[in-house]
């Protein structure tokens, strides 16, 4: 266990060294936050209470999306690029000899990274958004804590999906295609483009039960106090189930894939 804590701390520190990149990222998140917020204002001006949100809630949703974009890696591009590269070059053979579990090692690293991104890329856009717009921020610490738990579960789901994407490189060699499809699904089905409660009919029902909703839709609703009591437990179970299932599938795929590693050599 201790080794994973060290790896997670390393993941945190690693991203903390890119200070200019973090500042540039905060700038980008803020710019996109403003653009999206204005489109939401236009939409909610026409249809107040659309999707069950009032205007401040809808705007909070926008800024939560920007704050969690990097934490839950809705657009892809985290450890998986590195893992794909290691699979492609055959370096993965060395990793498999190490006395640590491959999946847990990367998960620990990714949790450290997520922790940094939540602080480094999340807080400032949220504060700027709150200064420029009227947001629905929880007044008591309860929803904030509930939100953090939900975010942590969302990060694990996000990791599990990206781990599968990376493993696809064992078969495809070049992971770009799979990564792109994952990025698209993440963007669309997480609620990043539009809250999933606005998706009509069957599309909406399907979107809300897919794993990507665990990355933004669920944490945002927890933040906005839409899930309390048993409802909160229910969404936690929803997130945790997806995390468990996807991690398990990842392990299975990994064991099949590592039998192929000999073919590629190292």
């Amino acid at each position: 266990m201790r080794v994973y804590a060290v790896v997670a701390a390393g993941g945190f520190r690693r991203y903390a060294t890119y200070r200019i990149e973090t500042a540039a990222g905060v700038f980008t998140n803020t710019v996109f936050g403003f653009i999206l917020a204005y489109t939401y204002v236009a939409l909610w001006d026409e249809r107040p209470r659309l999707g069950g949100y009032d205007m401040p809630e809808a705007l909070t949703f926008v800024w939560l999306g920007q704050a969690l974009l990097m934490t839950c890696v809705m657009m892809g591009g985290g450890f998986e690029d590195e893992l794909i590269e290691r699979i492609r070059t055959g370096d993965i053979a060395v990793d498999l000899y190490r006395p640590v579990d491959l999946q847990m090692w990367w998960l620990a690293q990714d949790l450290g990274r997520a922790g940094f991104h939540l602080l480094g890329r999340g807080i400032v856009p949220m504060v700027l958004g709150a200064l420029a717009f009227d947001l629905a921020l929880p007044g008591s610490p309860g929803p904030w804590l509930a939100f953090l738990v939900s975010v942590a579960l969302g990060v694990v789901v996000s990791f599990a999906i990206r781990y599968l994407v990376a493993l696809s490189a064992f078969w495809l060699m070049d992971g770009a295609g799979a990564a792109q499809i994952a990025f698209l699904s993440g963007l669309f089905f997480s609620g990043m483009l539009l809250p999933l409660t606005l998706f009509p009919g069957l599309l909406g029902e399907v979107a809300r039960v897919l794993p990507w909703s665990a990355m933004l839709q669920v944490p945002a609703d927890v933040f906005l106090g839409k899930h309390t009591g048993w409802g909160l437990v229910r969404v936690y179970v929803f997130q945790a189930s997806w995390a468990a299932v996807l991690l398990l599938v990842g392990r299975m795929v990994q064991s099949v894939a590592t039998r192929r590693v000999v073919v590629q050599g190292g």
Partner: protein
Amino acid sequence: MAEAVEAPVTEASGTVFAPGPGFVEGFRAYGLIVGMWLRSTMAYPASFLMTAVGNFAATAFDFVTIMLMFAHVDALGGYTLAEIALLYGASGTAFGLADLLMGSMDRLGRRVRDGTLDTLLVRPVPVLAQVAADRFALRRLGRITQGLLVLGYGLVVADIEWTVAKAVLLPLMLLSGAVIFGAVFVAGGAFQFIAQDASQVQNSFTYGGNTLLQYPPTIFAKDLVRGVTFVVPLAFVNWLPALYILGRDLPLGLPDGVAFLPPVVAAVCATGAGLAWRAGLRAYRSTGS
């Protein structure tokens, strides 16, 4: 487009890194590097197909989002879906062209950081041509295709009273828009000479600008519209010419004649970006690695 953007840079290479490679050589080099990346891309045809379709779909999701919005409303900021489709398609096509030709500029920061930029400097070929062609991604045709399709839809469905002037303005708008976005890419590249890890800032103006222009100016704060008209003149990519084509009043009370300025603004932007690039290249100090 490339011509306008690269012209001042050739001069820069000539003064800073003599002997000055020709203007023609810049083009030739760009073509050769692009050819190399095309062959490399085709080494994994399945992956190329997936990424091209993905590139198409990624941008299509933007428009799907707008369509989902219109499932709940009839107009956004006073504009119909067809009118927004025209704005969206014009910006998407112009941005797609710039992204195809210059989209690799955001990798410059990484090259400065890891020292591989030095390799480009010793080659007798304009640096800008090398950086712009680096990892040329044909999959970006997906974005252009998507932009053109939505533009076509907007042009057919929106209520437009066509005149000769409007018909001439349409292709001018797309080409000028591509040059303006291309200039932003180059200026962003120049900025990365100084702030190496700041490619994200460039994305705010390119991808962010594209997203902004997909929606009508009426939904944004006046100051924001002023900013993208007079400071970073993205409004000339589509807002001003497209609103004229739609027969709408231009934002900020600008006269109709302004709608015909995009080629002039594009030329000014390209020159400015060229100068910025030249300054950036001069300021560059190798890491020595």
